[in-house]
């Protein structure tokens, strides 16, 4: 152990001396961070040259080389009178530290310690470590020469093996220690550089973020060269970035040295040098200084790179990786591009790396968000972003250009993520500087500035109890609702993945006959859940996350609105509490679909925005109000309908109040502006309706095309509830009567809404004191919690046993009414189908055509590759008679069209009329004699097309309003800073 520590210390000391030549003005921490990489790299190069000169690689040679290098370093320092053994830069830690900073430093230290412990615990075991890096170290130490022909990939450079060789020579204990030491160095240099741009807390937070990325952590413990190379490359890129900002030559030289040492660590270092060089050329002004900088950069790199490259070429082995890349590049420029290869790589990345539950944590998910946040400083950060972009392209090309003798799948399994380690820390660095630029860098200052008071915090805490039932493995809803929602999301996902961005027709519902579920139901909640699912969460977790977020946000939204309305935090607290807990009492959440809790988020926001517009003529409230109203309509249009009277009452009340104020103003001789806020409110609501028009228009105009009788059945249930001792109490506490057409217990929502309104009114009248906790508030709050307690503690249903599948969808459709809706042309509700048989047998349905109708002599139908999609089907057929009927196991609904097409391609010849047939209202077309293709497609009707256009126009207008307001600085500058 002492030998290992001694070796590492000697390397740091050598690097420390040599850094004094290049740059003395570094903080001690930054200098330590750089020292190991520089010292060990120069030392191993020295050993390599000594070996070429005929010296055997032994401890004695090592000591001699070390002393010579140290002596040269010290001599240069003495001669140049830059005796830089003392770091002159400012401290990167800026003592004293806050408690938060101490905690962050403690966490980072704990992780680095853990990396050393894990590395030390396991012997070298990873394939690359054994076959290449550690084995080469073992061979060099055993033979005293550079002959590593027994090891794999003898063309790989020897920086790492030579370090390991000396650890073998020093006893062979913990030879992999060099890799975690590089990890430590990477963490330190990352922090020190980031500290130049952002405050200490944020720099430490970002460093902790980097050091906890599982993939980097894992590779820091297994003795492979990726983390050491990442250290070299990231250091070179960061100092290049600093050079481009500060134009200090020392940063450029440091960058060149480290990218050069990178090429002495892994074979592909020259690719990364080319990326850096391109950025240097792009971001320096075209003058003599630029040429000088490029010359220096190239020269320093060339010196370090050439040593190994010449040796390797003399050995006659050639760089086969380079040859493969060159060959692919030639193919690319000659037009032989293989898009499917790129698609496969990106798909692998999407599945294996993108989800936050995978090995990169949230890095890739957060990157685009932070990119948006950092747009204002994009020019300032451009070199770093271009470095990231070029590295991403280089990464893609390297994988694209891999040797085709091995399958691409193998390369992706073994190389895709590993190659990202080399530059991914730059992404974490960008996250740090971007967040710093958003100007909330001082967490200590900003977080108290949320200052929503103790009531908001108390409300948040109490709301968490409301969502507790959801957090367990069980589901919150009753069994049928749970399955319905999960399977509807499953179906939504299938359609989105098929490339249909606005789903309307759900092809697998009702045992595969299909149902226009998303045409008549608002898809808002499904989009949110699908977003989470595409990020990697499974269906159930995605749904639960949206449900939890909705409940908490709706409580906080109501708190904000009522506090604003009444000026009292206590009133807001009670209103927020009631808003989330009263639906519990009425079992709304449990009986409703996911759309209800999501829609409840927007009600207070719409009221808030409307009042703001009417009472205060705030034009900046127009866009948020329109967005909230649009979101409400897109999520649950029926709830919006129920809510409309309340909104109308509020609107009339505020207008009347405003008119009274204006009247007084007119009486006193001032100009009246009564109608302006009314017009603004109208604009906001019309825009909201416009945003949701893509859903509202078809839902309203085509609702009659689904079977209304199925809803009447349930309405009858509701009208005559089961008699009990007390029908009202029974109705309040019973599981409820659904309206599957609406997916909500509408009357309960109405009652709950009246209670909310009443509570708000009473609280408003009471004018509760915000300064202290009033007994009334405590009492009412307690009462709300007390009466909702039985509902909260009701036993929850068991969660899904397994992820949703087509088989599962078919099986539960029998019991879940929401999954077996029928259209207006269906007179008999099916209990099963032949398609369901195929799904349940675990097979794939390739066509929905009813093959039992004709023998093959009359009609032969052949399926085409990818012929069956979620929005239709393509088949080839040969009809030996004229006017032969072809029946699809698909319910008819407006929007279905059938076409006759050319037999060899999909060129449409003419449209074929569709007839709904039988009690199932299945689609039937009649085809002519001959050989053709038949295309069945679900297309947009006039209401759908008009709705989509209106929504697109509304989006453009809302975005224009937001941009216009932002330009005027209304969003930022006209608000007085909080006292």
């Amino acid at each position, binding site marked *: 152990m002492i030998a290992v520590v001694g070796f590492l210390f000697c390397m740091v000391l050598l690097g420390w001396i040599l850094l004094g030549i290049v740059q003395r003005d570094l903080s001690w921490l930054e200098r330590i961070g750089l020292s190991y990489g520089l010292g060990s790299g120069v030392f191993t190069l020295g050993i390599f040259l000594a070996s070429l000169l005929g010296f055997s690689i032994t401890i004695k040679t090592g000591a001699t080389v070390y002393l010579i290098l140290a002596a040269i370093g010290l001599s240069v320092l003495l001669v140049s009178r830059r005796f830089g053994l003392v770091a002159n830069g400012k401290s990167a830690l800026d003592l004293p530290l806050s408690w938060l900073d101490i905690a962050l430093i403690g966490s980072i230290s704990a*992780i680095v310690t*853990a990396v050393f*412990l*894990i590395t030390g*615990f*396991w*012997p070298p*075991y990873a*394939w690359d470590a*054994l*076959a*290449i890096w*550690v*084995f080469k170290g*073992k*061979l060099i130490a*055993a033979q005293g020469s550079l002959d590593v022909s*027994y*090891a*794999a990939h003898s063309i790989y450079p020897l920086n790492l093996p030579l370090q390991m060789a000396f650890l073998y020579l020093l006893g062979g204990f913990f030879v992999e220690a060099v890799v975690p030491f590089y990890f430590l160095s990477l963490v330190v240099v990352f922090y020190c550089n980031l500290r130049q741009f952002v405050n200490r807390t944020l720099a430490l*937070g970002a460093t902790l*973020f980097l050091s*906890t*990325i*599982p993939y980097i*952590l*894992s590779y820091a*413990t297994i003795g492979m060269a990726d983390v050491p190379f990442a250290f070299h490359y990231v250091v070179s890129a960061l100092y290049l970035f600093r050079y481009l900002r500060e134009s200090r030559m020392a940063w450029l030289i440091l960058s060149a040295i480290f990218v050069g040492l990178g090429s002495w660590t892994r074979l592909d270092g020259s690719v990364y040098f080319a990326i850096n060089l391109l950025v240097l050329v792009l971001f320096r002004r075209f003058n003599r200084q630029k040429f000088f900088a490029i010359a220096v950069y190239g020269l320093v790199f060339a010196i370090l790179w050439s040593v190994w490259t010449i040796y390797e070429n003399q050995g006659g082995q050639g760089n086969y990786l380079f040859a493969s890349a060159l060959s692919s590049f030639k193919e690319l420029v000659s037009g032989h591009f293989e898009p499917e290869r790129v698609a496969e790589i990106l798909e692998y990345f999407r599945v294996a790396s993108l989800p*936050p*539950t995978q090995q990169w*944590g*949230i890095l890739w998910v*957060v990157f685009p968000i932070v990119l948006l*946040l950092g747009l204002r400083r994009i020019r300032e950060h451009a070199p770093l972003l271009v470095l990231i972009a070029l590295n991403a392209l280089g990464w893609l090309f390297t994988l694209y250009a891999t040797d085709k003798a091995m399958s691409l799948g193998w390369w992706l399994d073994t190389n895709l993520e590993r190659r990202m380690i080399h530059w991914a820390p730059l992404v974490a660095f960008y996250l740090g500087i971007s*967040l710093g630029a*958003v100007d*909330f860098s001082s*967490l200590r200052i*900003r*977080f108290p*500035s*949320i*200052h*929503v008071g103790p009531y908001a915090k108390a409300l948040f805490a109490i709301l968490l109890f409301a969502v507790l039932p959801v957090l367990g493995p069980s589901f919150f809803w009753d069994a049928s609702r749970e399955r319905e929602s999960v399977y509807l999301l499953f179906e939504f996902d299938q359609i989105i993945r098929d490339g249909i961005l606005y789903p309307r027709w759900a092809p697998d519902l009702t045992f595969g006959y299909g149902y226009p579920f998303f045409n008549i139901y608002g898809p808002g909640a499904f989009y949110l859940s699908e977003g989470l699912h595409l990020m990697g969460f499974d269906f159930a977790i995605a749904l639960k996350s949206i449900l939890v977020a909705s409940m908490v946000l709706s409580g906080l939204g109501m708190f*904000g609105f009522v506090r*604003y309305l009444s*000026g009292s935090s206590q009133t807001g607290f009670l209103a927020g509490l009631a808003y989330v807990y009263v639906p519990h009492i009425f079992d709304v959440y449990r009986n409703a679909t996911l759309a209800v809790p999501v829609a409840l988020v927007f009600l207070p926001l719409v009221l808030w925005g409307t009042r*703001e517009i009417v*009472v*205060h003529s*705030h034009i900046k409230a127009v866009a948020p109000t329109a967005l909230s109203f649009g979101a409400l309509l897109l999520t649950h249009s029926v709830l919006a309908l129920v809510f409309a009277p309340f909104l109308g009452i509020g609107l009339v009340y505020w207008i009347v109040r405003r008119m009274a104020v204006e009247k007084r103003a007119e009486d006193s001789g001032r100009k009246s502006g009564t109608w302006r806020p009314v017009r603004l409110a109208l604009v906001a609501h019309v825009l909201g309706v416009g945003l949701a028009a893509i859903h509202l228009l078809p839902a309203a105009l085509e609702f009659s095309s689904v079977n209304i009788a199925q809803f009447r059945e349930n309405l009858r249930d509701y009208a005559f509830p089961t008699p009990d001792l007390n029908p009202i109490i029974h109705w309040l506490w019973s599981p409820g009567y659904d309206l599957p057409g609406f997916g909500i217990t509408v009357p309960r929502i109405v009652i709950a809404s009246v209670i909310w309104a009443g509570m708000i009114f009473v609280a408003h009248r009471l004018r509760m004191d915000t300064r202290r906790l009033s007994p009334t508030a405590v009492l009412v709050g307690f009462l709300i919690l007390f009466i909702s307690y039985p509902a909260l503690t009701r036993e929850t249903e068991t969660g899904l046993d397994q992820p949703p599948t087509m088989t599962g969808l078919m099986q539960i459709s029998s019991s879940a009414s929401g999954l077996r809706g029928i259209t207006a042309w269906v007179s008999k509700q099916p209990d099963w189908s032949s398609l369901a048989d195929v799904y349940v047998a675990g097979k794939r349905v390739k066509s929905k055509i009813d093959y039992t109708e004709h023998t093959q002599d009359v009609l032969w139908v052949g399926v085409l590759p990818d012929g069956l999609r979620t929005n239709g089907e393509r088949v080839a057929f040969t009809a030996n008679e004229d006017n032969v009927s072809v029946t699809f196991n698909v319910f008819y609904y407006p929007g279905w069209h059938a076409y006759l097409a050319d037999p060899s391609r999909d060129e449409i010849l003419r449209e074929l009329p569709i007839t709904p047939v039988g009690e199932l209202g299945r689609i039937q077309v009649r085809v002519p004699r001959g050989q053709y293709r038949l295309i069945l497609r679900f297309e947009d009707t006039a209401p759908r097309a008009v709705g989509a256009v209106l929504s697109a126009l509304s989006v453009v207008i809302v975005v224009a309003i937001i941009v216009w307001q932002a330009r005027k600085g209304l*969003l930022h500058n*006209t*608000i*007085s*800073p*909080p006292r």
Partner: protein
Amino acid sequence: MNALSKKTAIILARLGRSVVPLGVLILFVAHLYVTLPRLQESLGWLREQGALSYEEKMRIKWARYGSYFDLMDFVQKRTPLGAIILFEDGPKLGSIDFYFLFPRRILYGGAEVLRDHPEVEYVVIEGDYPGFPVSGEKFMMDDRHGLLRIRREP
């Protein structure tokens, strides 16, 4: 702008400034929530299995290659450093064989290789290999793997 609307404006401004750091904090916590259990799992080995020997650790890590590590370990312990060993044709895991057995020399092949290389001292038994007659002393690791120390006729 009256007092209430000014208050609203301030609340909105504060909310805007708070949403981003709050979001960052939530994402950061989510990141740690996902990543730290993996680290904890790795550290769990140290806590619970701290006394494992080198062989036991390697057996855990190389479990997916079946008895490969055990065979290498067996051969390494039963042969001298300079031994020349014959394996079934084709390296099984590339240079890994060399890593475990270095500085012993390894040859791959069948009866012909054995005939052409009289210096071979050991033949590794793996299943049906060697399917050709080799006279010598047999050491078995299990019923399928073992080692033959060749006894050559003077």
